[in-house]
């Protein structure tokens, strides 16, 4: 399939220099037997269209007069203009629209990354290097925060700490008579805490994996040679951990740039804006020019972080190769501190999972939040036959077919996208590793990571404009489920391609060469050799996009049309109807679906999430 597809596209490879035809013919015949390069080129072309083109579509709005802005710019629609740049960077509102949000974004990103590294690093160390009590249970439980939609933490935070500043019902603490100051209820502090608790599992997975692979003999040797503990830590352990540290920093930092739900909920009452909320405001106000400028800045910051990370990793590469042979994983025996350590890890679980989940669960069974009297408790939001005061959803959540329909749509659409992600991710890994160092490999690796750095809403807007009309052979996909699947697959590809690349690095050429000698074609080799060996990372490459996709809101809300209700859009609709109780109930359902899907897949395939994220 890939071969026939690829033939015509060999004409414009990313190489500006002309070559002679003879040479091309030879290359082509080699390529047919070893299609890595061909697949690489096909994948690159597809990704360039699906990743770069939408980006360019959005970003080019920054320099052209948008319809309706003619009076402001004094120019005709479509003409080149610097008006949007001026408005964002230099006008009297620039500090509100851009500079303060930029500063706030940096503060929050640094804060969240630090908190996530602290929580994740601590729990990773305890879980992999010590005999902490309840180790096995904890290593599953501490990944759960990532399965909760990130705005869950914000909702739970408000349910607890909301004060009279933001309207609506006050939170549980205020209702009990404990007043909460603004800095605690809204703004930077709660945003950092909420996002930090949401993203630390990333660090736990990556860092834990690296710690597990770390050869303790290296540390032992240093100790034998008389090095002090601090020296061992500073000269041996930390340098060895640096790649995974920088990798997790990158993943967390990148996510913060585009996260908008939590900052919006917690920032609005005190006018605390991030670049992502500023972007959201311009999307909502239908200002494509401003949207484009802010999105560009976000992408530029993201790319800068990736480049910095790549530099750091290149410096450190020689250290990484040390592991692998004769490694020994020494477990530190904590003695009676086992239980203390277990308590610490358990308290992380309590604050990052139990508290938000219970707060939400509690809110779904109370009429007026925070009032704990018998007549205030009700199951009507789950079970009632009819709820008269909300025209949009006139019965309990578990009645009727809305919830089931939405859940089925979510499973179907996100599942399909995740499956595509997993397979493409593995292919990308295959190409990148097999043609290591080639331009195709480098391009592929970087382009497949790019979606991670672009905020979902910017992507959604881009895809809307790209697929709103038919372009050559690509039909107008807007309004179709296909588009939703494609967009979800593309935006969650970074997880899968990371997992694919790291897994393929560990697989030598030998098994495939053996198959090749017996006459197996490329497809047969992939089917019978590569995929069975890579089962674990393939599963990770499917499950991670699934978890992330099932919580996805900003992309979905822009691209769904009537009739495709997903769990997340259902939740938002319920909030619109002021049925916070039922909206929270849907959030719980989302978390449950994500958890069950992960748990069952891991059980059935005997794999673990951690195995795929490394590298």
């Amino acid at each position, binding site marked *: 399939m890939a071969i026939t597809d690829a033939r015509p596209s060999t004409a414009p490879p*990313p*190489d*500006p220099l002309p070559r002679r035809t003879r040479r091309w013919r030879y290359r082509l015949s080699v390529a047919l037997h070893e299609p890595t390069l061909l697949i690489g080129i096909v994948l690159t072309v597809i990704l*360039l269209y699906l990743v*770069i*083109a*939408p980006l*360019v*579509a*959005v970003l*080019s*709005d920054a320099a*052209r*007069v948008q*319809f*309706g802005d*003619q*009076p402001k710019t004094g120019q*005709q629609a*479509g003409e080149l203009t610097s008006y949007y740049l001026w408005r964002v960077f230099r006008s009297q*509102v620039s500090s*509100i629209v851009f500079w303060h949000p930029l500063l706030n974004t940096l503060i929050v990103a640094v804060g969240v990354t630090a908190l996530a590294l602290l929580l994740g690093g601590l729990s990773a160390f305890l879980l992999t290097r010590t005999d902490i009590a309840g180790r096995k249970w904890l290593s599953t439980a501490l990944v759960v925060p990532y399965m909760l939609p990130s705005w869950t933490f914000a909702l739970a935070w408000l349910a607890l700490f909301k004060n*009279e500043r*933001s*309207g*609506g*019902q006050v939170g549980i603490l205020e*209702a009990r008579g404990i007043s909460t100051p603004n800095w605690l209820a809204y703004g930077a502090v709660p945003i950092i805490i909420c996002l930090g608790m949401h993203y630390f599992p990333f660090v736990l997975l990556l860092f834990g994996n690296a710690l597990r692979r770390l050869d303790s003999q290296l540390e032992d040797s240093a100790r034998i040679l008389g090095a002090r503990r601090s020296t061992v830590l500073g000269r041996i352990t930390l340098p060895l951990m640096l790649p995974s540290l920088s990798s997790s920093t990158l993943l967390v930092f990148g996510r913060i740039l585009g996260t908008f739900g939590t900052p919006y*909920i917690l920032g*609005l*009452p005190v*006018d605390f804006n991030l670049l992502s909320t500023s972007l959201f*405001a311009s999307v*909502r*106000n*239908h*200002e*494509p020019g401003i949207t484009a400028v802010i999105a560009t800045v976000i992408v530029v910051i993201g790319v800068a972080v990736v480049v910095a990370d790549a530099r750091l990793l290149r410096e450190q590469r020689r250290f990484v190769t040390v592991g692998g042979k004769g490694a020994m994983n020494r477990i530190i025996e904590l003695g009676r501190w086992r239980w203390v350590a277990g308590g610490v890890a358990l308290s992380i679980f309590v604050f990052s999972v139990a508290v938000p989940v219970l707060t939400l669960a509690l809110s779904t069974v109370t009429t*007026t939040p*925070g009032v704990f009297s018998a007549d205030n408790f009700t199951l009507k939001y789950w079970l009632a036959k009819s709820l008269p*005061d909300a025209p*949009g959803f006139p019965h309990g959540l578990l009645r009727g077919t809305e919830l089931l329909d939405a859940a089925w749509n979510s499973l179907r659409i996100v599942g399909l996208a995740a499956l595509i992600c997993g397979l493409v991710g593995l292919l990308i890994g295959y190409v990148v590793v097999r043609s290591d160092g080639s*331009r195709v490999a*480098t*391009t592929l690796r970087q382009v497949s990571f790019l979606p991670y750095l672009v905020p979902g809403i910017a992507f959604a807007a881009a895809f*809307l404009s*790209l697929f*709103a*009309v038919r372009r*050559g052979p690509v039909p*107008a996909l*807007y*309004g179709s489920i296909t588009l939703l699947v494609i967009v979800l697959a593309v935006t969650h590809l970074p997880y899968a391609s990371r997992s694919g690349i790291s897994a393929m690095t560990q697989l030598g050429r030998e098994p495939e060469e053996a198959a090749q000698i017996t006459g197996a074609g490329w497809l047969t080799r992939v089917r019978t050799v590569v995929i069975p060996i890579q089962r674990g990372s393939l599963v990770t490459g499917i499950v991670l996009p699934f978890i992330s996709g099932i919580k996805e809101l900003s992309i979905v*809300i822009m691209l769904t*049309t*009537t*009739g495709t209700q997903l769990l997340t859009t259902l939740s938002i609709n319920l909030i*619109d*109807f*002021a049925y916070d109780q039922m909206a929270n109930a849907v959030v719980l359902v989302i978390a449950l679906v994500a958890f069950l899907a992960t748990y069952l897949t891991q059980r059935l395939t005997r794999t673990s999430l951690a195995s795929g994220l490394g590298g």
Partner: protein
Amino acid sequence: MTSRTRTSHRHRYLLAMGVVAALAAVGCAPSTATNSTDGTDAADAAVAGPVIDSDFDLAALTAAAKKEGAVTVYDSTGDIKKVADAFQTKYGIKTTGVKSDVGDTLEKMTREAQAKNVTIDLTLYENGPTLVGQLLPQKTVYTWIPADLADQIDEANRNPLMVLSKANVWIYNPKVFPNGCPVDNLWDLTSAEWRGKVALQDPLGKPNIIEWFNQLGSTYDAELRTAYKANSGKDLATSEASAGKEWVKQLAKNDPILTAADDDVSAAVAAPNQTEPRIGLVSIAKFRDVAGKGYKMKVCDSLKPYVGYQYPKFGAIATGTKHPNAAKLFMHFVLTAEGITPEMGSGGISGSKAVPPSSNNPPGLTDWSRQLMKFDPAKLLSDFRDAQTMQDHWRLNHR
């Protein structure tokens, strides 16, 4: 590999990337701006007048609509589901009513029109400025008036077609203030006494509040000045262009409580366990929570010059609809008492004079024309142009 060759490889690679990206840009990703019109001069273009079919025949329209079999309508209120159900029951046409923010509706209808893949057949649309500034001139939608009801619709409400007037009102909590509303003048809300106690939805997220701010300045300047004098005994001295802008500035500086939705405003003022003294601006639709959630709220009927404002909801049919007749029939339906009543649960005035005003007015609101400000439909286009200026005015003063 030495670092030198690596660097040069890097540069060549970057160059190649750049070329490819540029090719992609030119080849397949035109800006969203270019495909929006076919050369028409944008917002300055006169909005095409409403279509009134001269050969209108309700029976024939009904038959044609039934043949099409389905229709989808977007509205910003959840009540649209009730209207859709009533329409489906009456005509047997599968009807989907969707509650959607005006911004999303605007974005989606525009994109669908570009894609020639229209799923939204018609909309009941609350944002007049973007209707006349974007949707109508881009021919995404058009205005259609049923010929048999045209006589009942005032000339001023025809272009664009106003289907319904709704209202936003200032409310207070009668449990906290048993002697009636604690304020009697709009300027009181900007006083130190009410600092941090006035609640409203974030104006940056609610277009009709921005439009109201603009209309305060353009249409109600004199009345605001009179009210100022009545309140303080002296003439308003301001460097702002209008009394409206001055009032907006003072309100923005008075530390108002901003919320993401007006449900939070009604909860902040009127929730059963609420004891704080507050004044809030909400849609009259929120009065359904009085029965549903035990809210304690009343319209602040002593407020001068007005207790709130009427805002129009317009009807427009997608130009590229695949169900043109069903869409027309639905438009006809919402211009009759039967069709619009579900949206007038807490009050409202139909665009058709044949439909009597709703008697479901919230307590304190008795006379819409006397108690409420009314947007001047002739100023929609200037409201569209001034929207960003007013948003900036709010932003700069609210910090």
